[in-house]
């Protein structure tokens, strides 16, 4: 033991320090389906963001919409001269343009409500896990109560009371979904809280807030990201449901749900495209988000590690 210190077995330092994110990214890309889904999703997002610059028509601008173009089948030429590859709806809106604009609304509603619900759920869940006792009991019973109602029902009731509009539907979605985040965060935070590094952090004299936000929270992020993606997908389809039922967004701001609802009455007369193409866009968005979420879960869950 005399020359122990000079013989310290130093493992070779890796030339490039791989951050957890790099490791995560390379593991994520191992699955071809997930990679493809991610690419499709990114394409959808880019198309939606760039909609005003790439669509031939602004479906919100009534001056550009010609009723004479109504219900044209896919591939027809519009009065204005461009080709309507996906046809047009009853009001004469070019469906390709309307779908991209609809995606903008659907995605932003889904993401905004997801982020707000995540922030609220995270704060509440962390508080429950760290405070414990009566605070935890009260919070978690409210969460249980909330989760015992179907999300659609909660959102439907709220929108019926609040009325139409993007802000109202986001509020309804947040109320319908925060509890999922709260429960997830509380579960993981309880596990992390009992780990030794939290005790070690307390022994360093760090404040409670610092221990919670700097030490516990980053370790809870993995399940939170997974729940976040899945819940965002379900927020998008929930918004579509509400709009389809006519209680979500108004006709002047057509989201995918509104578009599907618009074409619904034409289905039996053979004008399938008015509902089907927005439906496919919605399907593709939700499915790709879920596929990405599944792969995230596989990569981030230590129990599924090979």
């Amino acid at each position, binding site marked *: *033991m005399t020359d122990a210190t000079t013989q310290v077995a130093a493992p070779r330092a890796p030339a490039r*320090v791989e951050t957890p994110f790099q490791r995560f990214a390379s593991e994520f890309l191992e699955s071809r389906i997930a990679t493809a889904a991610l690419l499709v999703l990114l394409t959808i997002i880019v198309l939606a963001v760039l909609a005003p610059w790439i669509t031939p028509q602004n479906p919100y601008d009534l001056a550009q919409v010609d009723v004479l173009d109504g219900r044209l089948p896919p591939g027809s030429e519009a009065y204005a001269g461009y080709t309507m590859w996906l046809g047009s709806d009853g009001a004469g809106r070019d469906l390709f343009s309307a779908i991209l604009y609809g995606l903008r609304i659907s995605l932003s509603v889904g993401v905004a409500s997801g982020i707000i619900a995540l922030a609220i759920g995270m704060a509440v869940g962390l508080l429950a896990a760290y405070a414990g006792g009566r605070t935890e009991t009260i919070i978690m019973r409210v969460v249980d109560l909330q989760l015992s109602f179907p999300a659609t029902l909660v959102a439907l009731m709220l929108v019926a009371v609040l009325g139409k509009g993007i802000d109202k539907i986001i509020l309804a979605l947040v109320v319908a979904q925060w509890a999922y985040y709260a429960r997830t965060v509380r579960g993981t935070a309880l596990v992390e809280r009992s780990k030794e*590094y939290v*005790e070690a952090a307390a022994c*360093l004299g760090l*404040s409670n807030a*610092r221990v919670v936000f*700097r030490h516990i929270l980053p370790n809870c992020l993995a399940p939170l990201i997974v729940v976040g993606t899945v819940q965002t997908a379900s927020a998008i389809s929930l918004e579509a449901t509400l709009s389809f039922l006519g209680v979500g967004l108004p006709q002047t701001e057509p989201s995918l749900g509104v578009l599907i609802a618009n074409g619904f009455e034409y289905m039996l007369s053979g004008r399938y495209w008015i509902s089907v193409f927005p439906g496919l866009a919605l399907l593709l968005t939700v499915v790709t988000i879920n596929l990405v979420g599944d792969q995230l879960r596989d990569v981030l869950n230590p129990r599924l590690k090979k």
Partner: protein
Amino acid sequence: MTPVLQVSGLKTHFFTRAGVVKAVDGVDFSVAKGEVMGLVGESGSGKSITGFSILGLIDPPGRIVEGSVRFNGVELANAPEAALQTLRGNRIAMIFQDPMMTLNPVLRIDTQMMEAIAAHERVDRKTAWQRSRDALGLVGIPSPEERLRAYPHQLSGGMRQRVAIAIAFLNRPDLIIADEPTTALDVTIQGQIIHEAQKLTHQMGTAMIWITHDLAVVAGLADRISVMYAGRIVEQGPTDSVIDRPLHPYTVGLLGSVPTSNKRGERLFQIEGMTPNMLALPEGCAFAPRCRRANGACARQPQIEDIAGRAVRCFHPHTAAAAE
């Protein structure tokens, strides 16, 4: 010389649904500047709870019900949380058993070390970084600049425990409580870690409480040993005399069960019975049911007695052996 830490009559009880667990039940000891005190005992003897009681980190349903913990003359038992927080990691540091678990897996080493400095001092990032680097160098970590950028999973167990020790010494504390810091490491690394810890306490005059169940570890490290059994200290004294001439039957048993080479082929000695149920401790001496020397006298609680410069809590100490 006034001791850095003076623990007297410390009682930490846990009020569980099944009854009161007297995890620490009247512990007295003191640690002087630069001294290493080995706190020895088997699992559940209350040695770790003693450590946590000093730092005031006992979670409900447990609490310190009696006794005092004086640190540099200041009373810590049931002191306000804010006062304790300024001491933790600053004047009193702790090293934990499992180096795999004590570092936050998602934060880099430099983040965690600089955070420990920033919690107690207003220093700029550059100074904090330099101090962290120097601390890593001090515990014998080669190329500390690179290690600072690493994440815990990129370091070996021994390396992580060195980092934990470096963090403990960062703010040059007066007292370090090491809770079985070498138990999770293999023997060669154990030796190195003990060597580093010993070197640093001597260099900096830090007092240290080394909690362990391994007598072999404290034998080479500690200046004094306190042996704990069922929440009480049963024997306390200078390391050499405790190891060479144990007085309490429990210490004798512990030393007897250390496997040594001259007993090859023989059956190893073991202390009969099990550690007592902490919910139902016997009236008198807690060790009596397992003790070969026990008789009727042991139905009463033995008091600490001073025998040959040592504190022993027993009616039938091995004084004959001590006289040899």
